[in-house]
C-alpha cells in the first residue's frame, strides 16, 4: 500500500464522509429537537434528487442554480409533513413515532415509482462534474462540492441556532419544552421549523448527490442507514456529532472496502458504532 494510494483512499473517504454527514445533519437536528428519528429521511433525499434531476433535464437548470430552490422546496415539504403527520405522534410513544415515519417511507417510495417510474436517472454534464487533480490524488468535483456544502450547511445551522431569534427559541424548546411554552414560545411552530430545516439540509445533500449518483425510487434506502449510524455514532442530538460521525464512516468504509471483501465494507462501521455506544452510551458527542 503506497502512500499515494492511502492518501487517495483517505481523500475519497472524506469526500463520501461529507456526503454522509450532510445527509445525517438533518436527522440529528430533528432528534435533538424532539427525540424523533425520521425514518423517511432517505425519502426526502430521494425527492430532492428527483427535483434536481427534473429541473436539469426538463428545465435545463444546472444543479448549482437549483440548489437553493430545492432546499426551499424541501423546507416547505418538511413543514408540511410535520403538520400533517408528525404533530400527531409527537407526544406519543417511541413506537408510534417510529412507525409513523416508517409508513411515510413506504408510501413515498411507492409514490415515487408511481409518478416517476422505476427507471434510473442521472444528471450528466452539470457544472459540478469532473475532477480536480492534486498531484496524484484525484478529487471528484461532486465530492468537493459536497464537502463545501456540508461544512457550510453545518456552519449555517449553528449560526441560525445560536444567533437568531427563531434559532434560540428552537433550542429553548429542545431543552425544556414546558418552560419554553411558558415563555410564550410557540413550540409547535418551532418543531415545524426544525422539520423544515432538516428537510432543507437533506435537500441540499440530494441536490449535490444527484451530480454523481443515480436517482431511482429506492435511492433513499441506500444512504439512510448510514445516516442513522452517523447520527447515533456522533450522538443523537448533536449536529456536530453527525458531521463527525459521517466523516469517520466515510473513511472507514473506504479503507475496509479495500482490504476486506467489498460486500463487508460497512461491517467495521457497524462494529465501530457498537463499540462506541457501549463505551459511551450516548455516542461521541451526545448529550448525557
Amino acid at each position, binding site marked *: 500500500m503506497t502512500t499515494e494510494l492511502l492518501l487517495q483512499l483517505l481523500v475519497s473517504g472524506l469526500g463520501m464522509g461529507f456526503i454522509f454527514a450532510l445527509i445525517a445533519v438533518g436527522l440529528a437536528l430533528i*432528534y435533538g429537537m424532539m*427525540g424523533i*428519528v425520521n425514518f423517511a429521511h432517505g425519502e426526502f433525499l430521494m425527492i430532492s434528487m428527483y427535483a434536481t434531476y427534473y429541473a436539469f433535464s426538463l428545465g435545463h437548470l444546472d444543479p448549482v442554480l437549483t440548489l437553493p430552490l430545492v432546499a426551499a422546496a424541501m423546507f416547505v415539504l418538511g413543514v408540511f409533513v410535520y403538520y400533517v*403527520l408528525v404533530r*400527531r*405522534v409527537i*407526544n*406519543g*410513544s*417511541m*413506537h*408510534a*413515532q*417510529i*412507525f*409513523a415515519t*416508517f*409508513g*411515510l*417511507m*413506504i*408510501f*413515498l*417510495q*411507492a*409514490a415515487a*415509482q*408511481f409518478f416517476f417510474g*422505476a427507471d434510473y436517472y442521472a444528471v450528466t454534464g452539470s457544472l459540478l462534474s469532473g475532477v480536480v487533480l492534486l498531484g496524484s490524488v484525484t478529487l471528484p468535483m461532486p465530492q468537493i462540492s459536497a464537502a463545501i456544502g456540508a461544512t457550510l450547511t453545518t456552519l449555517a445551522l449553528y449560526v441560525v441556532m445560536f444567533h437568531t431569534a427563531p434559532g434560540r427559541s428552537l433550542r429553548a424548546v429542545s431543552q425544556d419544552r414546558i418552560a419554553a411554552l411558558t415563555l410564550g414560545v410557540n413550540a409547535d411552530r418551532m418543531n415545524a421549523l426544525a422539520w423544515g430545516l432538516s428537510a432543507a439540509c437533506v435537500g441540499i445533500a440530494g441536490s449535490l448527490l444527484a451530480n454523481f449518483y443515480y436517482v431511482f425510487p429506492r435511492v433513499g434506502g441506500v444512504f439512510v*442507514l448510514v445516516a*442513522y*449510524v452517523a447520527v*447515533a455514532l456522533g450522538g*443523537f442530538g448533536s449536529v456536530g456529532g453527525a458531521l463527525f460521525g459521517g466523516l469517520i464512516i466515510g473513511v472507514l468504509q473506504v479503507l475496509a472496502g479495500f482490504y476486506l*471483501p467489498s*460486500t*463487508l465494507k*460497512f*461491517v467495521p462501521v*457497524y*462494529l465501530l*458504532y*457498537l463499540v462506541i*455506544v*457501549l463505551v459511551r*452510551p*450516548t*455516542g461521541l458527542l451526545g448529550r448525557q
Partner: protein
Amino acid sequence: MTNRLIATVHSSQFGARSWLMPTIVFASLTALVLLPFGLNGRPFELRLFTIIFLNAAMGQAWNILGGYAGQTSIGHAIFFGLGAYTSTLAGLELGLNPWLGAVLAMLVSALAGVLLGFPCFRLKGHYFVIATLVIAESIFLVFTEWNAVGAAIGLEIPIRPSSWLNFQFGRDKTPYYWIALAFATLVTVFVARLSSHRLGFILKAIRDDESAARSLGYSLQRYKTIAIAFSAGLIGFAGTFYAQYVLLIDPPTVLGAPISIAIALIPILGGIGTVSGPLLGAVVLTTLSEYSRAYFSGSGRNVDLMIYGALIMAIAAYRPAGLVSLFRRVRGLNAPESVPVDATAPAVPVTPTAAPAFERTAADPILCVRSVSRRFGGLQALDQVSFQVMRHEILGIVGPNGAGKSTLFGVMCGDIRPDSGSVKLEGMPLLGERSDTLARRGIVRTFQTPRPFLSMSFEENILVAALVRITDRREARREARARLAQVGLLDCADRPALGASTGQRKRLDIARALATNPTILLLDEPLGGVDPGSIPGVIELLQAIRAQGTTIVVIEHNLEALSGLADRLIAMALGTKIAEGAPADVMQDRRLVHAYLGAEVHAAA
C-alpha cells in the same frame, strides 16, 4: 386446563371469570381448525391464513421483548434467519430431522438473543434500535459472502416425500396451515400466561420504568435476557417453519431488513404489550398486503405499497396504541406525563403525636457512610460526607436545594458510585453494587418525583414489588393488599396508577418500597406536594413503619413536620455535612439557617 385457559384469557382484565370468553375462543379455534375443509383447496387463501398465523406468532414473540420488556428491536430477522439456516444446515450436513432441527434452531436463536442482549441492553431508546438494525445488517452481509452457508445462492432443502415426520408437504399444504395455527395458539397462550405470571409483571415494570424496577431489586439485565431468549427462540422456530415451507432460503429472504420491520410492525400496529394486539395486527396487515398485491401489483405502479404505507401512517397517527385501542383502552403506554390535581385527597384525620412511641435501646449503627465524595463535571456534589444511621431510627436529612441530598441517596442505594469513600451496610461494604442488588440486600429508596408503573393498577404496582421475595402469587397479592391498607389506599386497589394524584403516588411509592421488606427505607421528600391536611397521616404512617422495625432515612424540606418525626437530623449544604444531632439543636444551628435563608436574613434576625 380449562380453568387455566379462562384465567389466562382474562389476564389483562382484573381476574374476572365468565363463560362467554372461553366459548368465543373455543368457537373461533374450532372454526379455524375446520376452515381448510371449507376452502376447497384454494391455495391462495390457505396460504393467506398460514401466513397470518405465522405472523401472529412472530408478533407475539416480538412483543415479549418489545411490548413487555420495552426494548424495541428492528433486528429480529437475525433470529428468523438463524433459525432457518440452523435447521437447514443441520438437515443438509448432519442429516438431522427437521423437527429436531427446529429445536436446535430455537436454541441457537435464543443463544443469539442472549449474546446480542448482553452488550446491547445497556443502550437506551433509539441507540438500541439502531444497534439491532446494524447487527442484523452485518449478519446479512456476512451470510451473503459466506460460501459455507451458500452465500447469495442460498440453500435448498431437498424435496422429500410429504409427511409429518419430514416436515414437508408437497401438493396439499393444509398441514402447514395446522402447524402454523398450533404455533400461533401455543405462543398466544404462552404470552397470555406470561402476562399474568410473575415474569410478566416484572417485564412490564421494567418497560414502564427501569429505574423504579431496579430500585425494587430487579436486575434489568437478567430479566431482559430472559425476555429476549424467549422472543428469539420462538422466532427461531418460525424461521425453521418458513424454511420447510418454501424449501429455499437465501440471505435476502430470511435475513433482510424488511423482515425485521414486518415482524415488528404487526404487534406495534396491532397493539403493543397486549395479547390480542399481534393477532389483530396479523389479520389486518397480512390480509391487506396480500390482497392488494394480488390484485393491484400487476400494474407495476406500486399502488398496493402506497396503500400499505398510508395505512401504517394512519394507524400510527390516529391509533398510536394500536388497532386494539379501537376496542378497549390500553393503559399507560401512551400517557402524557401530566399528573392529575389532588382534588379529593382523602384527609386522614389523625392527631399527630409529637414523640415517637418507639423506644430505641442501644445505639447500633446499621449503615456507615465514611468520607464519601462525588463530582459531576465541575460540580462537587458530595464532599467528604460522613455519618452513621442507627438501627430503627428515623434520620432526617435537610438542606437547601443543591445540597447534595438526593445524590447522597443515590450513593446509599447504589444508583451512583462515589468517587471516594465507603458505605457499609451492617458492617459489610457496598462494593459498587447496583441498586437492584442493594435493594435485595435491604436498602430501598423512593423517588423525589414518584415513579409508579403507569400501565398497572395500584395493587399491581405493589404486587410487582412483593414478587421480589415472594414467589407465590396468592401470597404476594395478600402482601400487596396489606401494604395498600397500611398506606390507606386499599379502596384504590384496582384503579389505574395513571390516574393517581400526587399524594396517592407518594403513598403508593412508599407502599411499594415497603413490600420488598426493606431494612432501610430511603424516602425522598415524602411530603413534597402533599396537602397540609394529609401530612399528619403520612407522619403517622412513617412512625408505624419504624415501629415495625424498619430504619428510615428521610429527605425533607418541611422542617416543622420533620422535627416532630425524626430522631436525629443531618444538615447539608453545598455537598458537605454542616450539622448533625437532635432536631431542636440542628434547626437552631446558625449554619443551617445561614444556608437556607442567607446571611442577610440571619444578620437581621
